[in-house]
């Protein structure tokens, strides 16, 4: 179980540019829960995710994984528990390494890295099998540089990498936003498939209200660094895009003016 308690994050503290990205967020995710997070630009979605991953240090509050306080741990210290896929397909994979090298690197997340050969014949079969599940024909291109793949393919590989080693939570940071609609749909359905099959606890940030409603069993709406609305189970299932729009409209101009959010 992941629990975020009263977490606040302030950037550039003590300067005129001080920015309160999170102002006391409390959120806990039970085992196998799939939570989607929506909110306008600057609502603190990415900051929340980066705080859980350990990329951003919190100003106040605690973050614990399985009742162990990880607030002070850095990103690589939390890596045994946290898997993530970034928004930018370039960020989650290493373009100058081959597909199999990327997968081998990710498969060893959370383990001690040894002087044993990084690429083992025994693992290649597993990699091929998992790549085949993506349905993109990548299982025949194990030795190709990831830099030769399209954005959608890279993101699918990122997603696969995040699921190779066990994790307590999978963090998805608008991971389909930078892709064309078709690739985006592919990556999202793969995500749903992986989360179900591997029973992953997942936190997915999205700009698309439709996706936020279509996936997961709980929805969280962030606004100006606070959680302003939550729904889960049957209540979430009943929600429609207009319901969410209405909630955003109530927040006043700051949220409703957000074109990107409305057009989605």
């Amino acid at each position, binding site marked *: 179980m992941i629990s975020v308690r009263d977490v606040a994050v302030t950037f550039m503290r003590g300067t005129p540019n001080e920015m309160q990205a999170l102002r006391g967020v409390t959120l806990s995710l039970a085992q196998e829960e799939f939570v989607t997070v929506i909110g306008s630009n600057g609502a603190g979605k990415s900051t929340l995710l980066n705080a859980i*991953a350990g*990329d951003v240090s919190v100003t106040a509050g605690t973050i614990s994984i399985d009742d162990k306080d990880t607030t002070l741990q850095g*990103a*690589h210290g939390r*890596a*045994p528990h946290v898997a*993530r896929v*970034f928004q930018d397909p*370039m*960020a*989650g*994979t*290493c*373009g*100058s*390494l*081959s597909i199999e*090298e990327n997968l*081998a*690197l*990710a498969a*060893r*997340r*959370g*383990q001690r*890295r*040894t*002087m*044993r*050969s*990084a*690429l083992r014949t025994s693992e290649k079969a597993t990699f091929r099998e998992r790549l085949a599940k993506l349905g993109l024909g990548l299982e025949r291109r194990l030795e190709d*540089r990831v*830099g030769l793949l399209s954005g959608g393919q890279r993101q699918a590989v990122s997603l696969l*990498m995040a699921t190779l080693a066990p994790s307590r939570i999978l963090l998805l940071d608008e991971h389909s936003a930078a892709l064309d609609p078709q690739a985006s749909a592919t990556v999202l359905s793969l995500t749903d498939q992986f989360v179900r099959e591997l029973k992953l606890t997942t936190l997915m940030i999205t700009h698309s209200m439709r996706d936020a409603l279509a996936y997961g069993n709980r929805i969280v709406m962030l606004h100006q660094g606070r959680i302003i609305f939550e729904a889960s189970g049957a209540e979430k299932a009943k929600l429609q895009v207009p319901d969410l729009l209405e909630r955003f409209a109530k927040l006043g101009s700051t949220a409703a003016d957000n074109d990107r959010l409305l057009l989605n």
Partner: protein
Amino acid sequence: MDGSFATGAAVAAALISGGHNPWLASLTALAVGALCGLATAVLNRRFGMLHLLAGILTTIALFSIDLRIMGRPNVPLIAESTVLTPFEALGFSDAVTRAAVAGIAAIVVATLLAIFLLSERGLAMRATGANPRMARANGVDVDRNIYIGLAMSNGLVGLAGALFAQFAGFADVGVGTGTIIFGLAAVILGETLFPTRRIPVVLIACVFGSILYRLVVGLALNLQILGLRSSDLRLVTALLVAVAFVVSQKRGALRRKAGPAVLRVSSKEGAPS
């Protein structure tokens, strides 16, 4: 780089002329080189100094340290016993002995490097260089890898300096100048000749690149027709690196493959620290 090379030469020369075992002297040069690398890494990671500046600063400091180590700007090793001495006793000509010893050293180092780079730890280090954010997300301790990487590379440069001093028969505070350009030239030429990413081949490419570079420079300076003098060395070096870079870049564009990764300015994945 320039600093660790001269320091390696200085340490080896000081120890050998002081009557110490040349093998021990060479290993000490490796260790001291590694310490120089760590100094750069500390400035960069611990204190957040730009990597290039950290490297330049270490290099400048090492110039003075070299003078302290040697006690004077130049130490001759002609009369001393070096790592070459036991091989010279075998009775082959000087040229053959030197080439053989240098070749053995290159093979040993390249083999060890290949084993390392192909291992899990080596893969983590390569990822650290290419995409630190992705490496961190996969549980790689990026800082530690940068410390180890800089220590390893500068240690090897220190060893190279030690061997150079013993081959040349002297150590001088100036021997390190241009090492970094020479290293880049070797890598770029190697990448141009063998456009591959397979680690063993990449290492072989570097070795051949460095031999080729020396040959071309030697040829250019010795060809009477070109009218070059030995003082033109640096100009020839710079032109060679520039030409090799442009050629590999053009070829990269034609094949939609990346050119030499070492020196491209705008990399989408963030520069290695």
